[in-house]
């Protein structure tokens, strides 16, 4: 026993061993954190390198080593062309066609998930009594945990044949017949204010177009519905957390002034929880952009810029699935297009993350 040990804060063998473990644990944890960063950077580099090959015919490393630029696909063609068929006998590389597919599915799905998800969150946070909430919330979270391929089956076996086909068969085509019938009953053209207006002919044309709506195995509408339903739990769950975090003091203050539940929900809770609610929207949209399995099975593989919800369309992710199945040889232009599309997708989701950050900063700490 030396005098030192009496001081009590010198430490001993055991403590210094613990401290050594501490330092090692710190390194291990840092390594885990670094792994995700390295992976992200690596993915970006691979995408970028291969995309360079697609556009310039040489990888970045080759270009740095002095390879000559051999333009394969011009940026103009890629970003402004409207036909996407890299594997066609007469290839074409207009990415807009599949960007459109992704956009229309994402926007359409947002029209389902945002209102339904927000209303669900408001119901759970403000209207439901606690026992109902405790029963409903796990079910909602279960919905978020269903594998996306199951949603795909759901699209193929129910949404398309029953719901979408039902709309086409029992709503659109009968209306088309009615419009057509009215068109035949009216004169083909009518003179209005000195000019000929083709009323009957227009109605006949519109009626015929509506009567021609048949739903195949895939449709844009099925994709929108399935992705919309898939992303409802993201909106509702995260929004509800944000609403729960609003201090009850604020609700008390409003109720004590004679506010109704609706006044409090819309005027107090939603503004105070805005940052979390908006974050949930951005997350749901990001998820919809990147969604692959369900959307491929629901919306199909036919690149197509259309507004017709009954037609088959192709999203960027669906294209990547079909290309990665391995019909094209590695290194060919059509194979490399996979990476160019992947890069666009990556940049789109990156953009959503930036938007999310900006919104967070803008709406942060609405209360205290």
């Amino acid at each position, binding site marked *: 026993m030396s005098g030192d040990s009496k001081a009590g804060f010198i430490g001993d063998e055991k403590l210094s061993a613990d401290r050594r473990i501490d330092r090692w644990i710190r390194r291990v944890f840092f390594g885990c954190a670094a792994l995700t960063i390295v992976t992200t950077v690596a993915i970006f580099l691979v995408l970028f390198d291969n995309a360079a090959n697609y556009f310039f015919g040489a990888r970045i490393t080759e270009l740095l080593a002095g390879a000559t630029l051999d333009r394969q696909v011009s940026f103009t063609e890629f970003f402004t062309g409207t036909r996407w068929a890299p594997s066609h006998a007469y290839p074409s590389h207009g990415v807009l066609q599949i960007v459109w597919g992704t956009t229309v599915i994402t926007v359409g799905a947002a029209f389902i998930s945002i209102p339904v998800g927000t209303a669900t969150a408001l119901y759970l946070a403000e209207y439901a*009594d*606690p026992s109902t909430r405790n029963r409903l919330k796990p079910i909602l979270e279960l919905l978020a945990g269903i594998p996306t391929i199951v949603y795909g089956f759901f699209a193929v076996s129910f949404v398309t044949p029953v719901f979408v086909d039902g709309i086409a068969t029992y709503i659109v085509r009968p209306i088309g017949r009615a419009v057509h019938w009215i068109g035949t009953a009216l004169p083909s053209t009518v003179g209005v204010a000195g000019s000929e207006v083709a009323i009957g002919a227009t109605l006949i044309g519109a009626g015929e177009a509506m009567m021609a709506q048949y739903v195949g195995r895939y449709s844009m509408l099925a994709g929108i519905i399935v992705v919309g339903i898939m992303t409802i739990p993201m909106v509702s769950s995260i929004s509800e957390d944000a609403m729960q975090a609003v*201090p009850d*003091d*604020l*609700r*008390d*203050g*409003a*109720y*004590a*002034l*004679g*506010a*109704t539940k609706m*006044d409090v929900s819309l*005027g*107090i809770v939603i*503004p*105070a929880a805005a940052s979390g609610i908006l974050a949930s929207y951005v997350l749901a949209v990001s998820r919809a952009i990147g969604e692959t399995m369900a959307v491929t099975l629901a919306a199909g593989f036919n690149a197509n810029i259309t507004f017709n919800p009954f037609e088959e369309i192709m999203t960027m992710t669906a294209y990547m699935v079909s290309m990665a199945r391995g019909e094209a040889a590695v290194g060919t232009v059509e194979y490399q297009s996979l990476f160019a599309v992947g890069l666009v997708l990556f940049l789109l989701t990156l953009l959503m993350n930036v938007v999310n950050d900006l919104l967070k900063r803008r709406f942060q700490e*609405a*209360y*205290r």
Partner: protein
Amino acid sequence: MKRTEANPMTDLTSQTSQPDAERTPTRTDPDPALIADDLSVYYGEEQALGGVSMEIPERRVTAIIGPSGCGKSTFLRSINRMNDRVPGCRVTGRLDFHGKNVYDANVDPVALRRRIGQVFQAPNPFPKSIYDNVAYGLRVQGRDDEVDMDAEVERALRGSALWEEVEGQLDASGLELSGGQQQRLCIARAIAPDPEVLLMDEPTSALDPVAEAKIEDLITELAEEYTVVIVTHNMQQAARISDQTAVFLTGGELVEIDDTDRVFSNPADQRVEDYITGKFG
């Protein structure tokens, strides 16, 4: 927004107006604004308020004092039925406001709260501008078309002695004010819709002594226009500002209620004397 009530100022049910019960004043004091009759409150199995009967006179300050957990806040929250928000809360007995039991089936708590304002323990301004905070009550009550809102906001802020401090910055967030200013903003918010009764739940306990003194002065002034019921854990405060004091003791029991001077100088109940002199509680 159109409201279904015929006139929110005289009617606290959502349907037709009830004639005021005949009442003969029994003492020279002002008419009671509120009469509790054997009022009990239960949270689940637990009784928080045990058969309280008392009268709260109009345009006076009634202080409710007592140790922690004696049910004084519960009593306050049962007046404007804020207890309805607590799951598992049950109320028995009567609480008459203008001769009408506020726990009758046809009373709408939303309509009731439009006539009984409340100020809370911690300042809780909305994350909105000062103006919107004060205007909130009139807006949700659908009265913003009927009155000159700017004038009403100014009147309420003057009434809470805050106008001079915030006059030029009504668009600033209510959260930017100091704690004492925030609490006066909450008082302005509560008096803007012109309620008859103002309930205050330890309104100065989160404030520094200077802000506390300001609010105490304000409460005395407010009693000229409003019936004030204030819960406080601070006996000096009760003695300074109230006309009548009710002492609740553990178990939610009302032990003594009388003029404030008498309660503090010559309490009738030994337990109250012990409590006031600091022997327990």
